[in-house]
């Protein structure tokens, strides 16, 4: 919990500043963020985010679970991009194990990750526009988000808490008709992005509320550890998908949108362009989807098929052992980072050679991005704080963990 005392002036009888408490129930704080503002009239003198209201101790819980039991916990960290978290965790464990993942599983992971990015950016765009006063965009965005959530439900049976990726591959084969549905969505979606852009990009009110607001320079953005669109909006051309590829991203061709201004509008334009790039990657994944197995050939780690379990003694024994004892992971440590919709999502997993992780640490992109908020807002107006918080796209579940 944070404290903020008013800056002392030379004359204690004349308080120029006051402390204003924004949140944790303020609707524009996207959850339970509390921001302490020291204001002089409408101008912000100092600002201090206060977090921890959603702290659930997930990192501690992970230490008491088998490796495969951690996957559902990772969904609950960032509820807007569960599949990105699933992916990052399973990649880390697979790196510890030294597992090879078959190409079809890798391509499915890429496809679903880009759909997740679209889902997350749609929620961001809708709520960000709502915060600044543009109502309609919210309804449009949630219309398309519903389509994406239906696709998640098709593959995993869940709309939000998917847990679809497993250590060694995927949980299930994608169902019949899934690819047609995604293809149909990919065909329609670019026009929908045009619709959002028609409402916002050239809109004079939108530009007045976002251009030149909450600026951050590239040096500050790097020094403060920001990542994702918050970093690229300041002109730093860095994207983990392209620069340090994982899960077969090196097979895809896509642009990394970068904007130079470092303001709210720059971050907005980066994310909107990312929507188009993501659907482009989805289309490439559909066209080039390889055939073959969806699970690695590692019977001690990957659960056998139901069919084999019922017909082969060996498969039944492996199944029983994995469920009851988990699988031992060789000693070591890895740090695996992926490009989540918000930036660098990293999992640091330490193994002591047993079936439970010794330590799982999540590097939350939002936690670092939130540190840029004071730099963005000090000296500006209160209304700009709302725009700035929206533009760094915070998810408190990820920040507090």
């Amino acid at each position, binding site marked *: 919990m944070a404290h903020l005392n008013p800056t002392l002036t030379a004359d204690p009888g004349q308080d120029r500043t006051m402390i204003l408490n924004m949140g944790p129930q303020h609707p524009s704080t996207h959850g339970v963020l509390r921001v302490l503002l020291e204001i002089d009239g409408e101008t912000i003198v100092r600002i201090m985010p206060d977090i921890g209201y959603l702290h659930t101790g997930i990192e501690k819980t992970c230490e008491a679970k088998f490796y495969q039991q951690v996957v559902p916990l990772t969904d609950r960290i960032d509820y807007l991009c569960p599949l990105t978290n699933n992916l990052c965790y399973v990649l880390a464990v697979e790196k510890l194990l030294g597992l090879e993942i078959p190409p079809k599983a890798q391509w499915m992971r890429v496809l679903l990750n880009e759909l997740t990015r679209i889902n997350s950016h749609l929620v961001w765009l809708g709520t960000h526009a709502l915060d600044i006063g543009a109502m309609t965009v919210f309804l449009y965005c949630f219309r398309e988000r519903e389509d994406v959530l239906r696709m998640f439900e098709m593959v995993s049976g869940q709309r939000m808490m998917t847990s679809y990726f497993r250590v060694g591959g995927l949980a299930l084969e994608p169902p019949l008709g899934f690819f047609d549905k995604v293809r149909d969505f990919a065909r329609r979606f670019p026009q929908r992005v045009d619709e959002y852009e028609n409402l916002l990009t050239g809109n004079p009110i939108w530009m007045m509320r976002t251009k030149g607001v909450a600026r951050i320079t590239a040096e500050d953005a790097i020094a403060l550890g920001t990542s994702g669109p918050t970093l690229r909006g300041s002109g730093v051309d860095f994207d983990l998908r392209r620069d*340090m590829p994982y899960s077969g991203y090196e097979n895809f061709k896509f642009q990394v949108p970068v904007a130079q201004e470092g303001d709210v509008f720059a971050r907005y334009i980066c994310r909107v362009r990312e929507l188009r790039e993501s659907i482009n990657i989805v289309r490439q994944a559909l066209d080039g989807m390889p055939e073959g197995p969806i699970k690695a050939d590692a019977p001690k780690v990957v659960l056998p098929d139901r069919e084999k379990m019922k017909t082969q003694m060996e498969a039944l024994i492996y199944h029983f052992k994995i469920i009851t004892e988990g699988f031992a992971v060789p000693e070591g440590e890895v740090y695996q980072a992926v490009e989540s919709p918000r930036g660098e999502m990293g999992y640091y997993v330490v193994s002591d050679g047993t079936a439970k992780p010794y330590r799982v640490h999540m590097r939350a992109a939002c936690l670092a991005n939130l*540190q840029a908020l004071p730099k963005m807002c000090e000296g500006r107006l209160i209304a700009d704080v709302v725009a700035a918080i929206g533009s760094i796209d915070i998810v408190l579940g990820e920040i507090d963990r």
Partner: protein
Amino acid sequence: MALPPAIIDLEQLKGHPAIARLLAADSVAVEGVKFDRDEMTIYVTRDSIRNACALLREDPNCPFNYLSDITCVDWYPQEPRFEVVYHLLSIPRKERVRLKVKLDGSSPALESVTSVWPGADYFEREVFDLFGVRFAGHPYLRRLLMPEDWEGHPLRKDYPVEGYR
């Protein structure tokens, strides 16, 4: 699932730009290195962590200019008990390196790197909050996630998963 064995020989690894840079500086003591699963780990002494970070950040050949993460691992009941882990990233070189500092369990403390990267602020506060490791020179070292009046540090291994009742 055959993993190549980890390389822990300093002689073999001293060609790596980060290690060469740290070895060339007098102010930094490198305790050991490890190259495992394509990841480089450098153990530095407690007193030289801030200098090591500053050196790697300013390196003209291979600037590790971005601090990805700071965290900690508790090896209770072993001594030295804590390992504070720094993940650095070089944006121009697209490369990562991990720095580690070992700390005793009695009163774990080391120098803050907030003067090198202001972004270390929340990471160090989180480590302080959940492990009780103190960072000297941190501008606002208070609990970040747990309530201010909380007793104990939940991510320590001697803290029960279900908490104290």
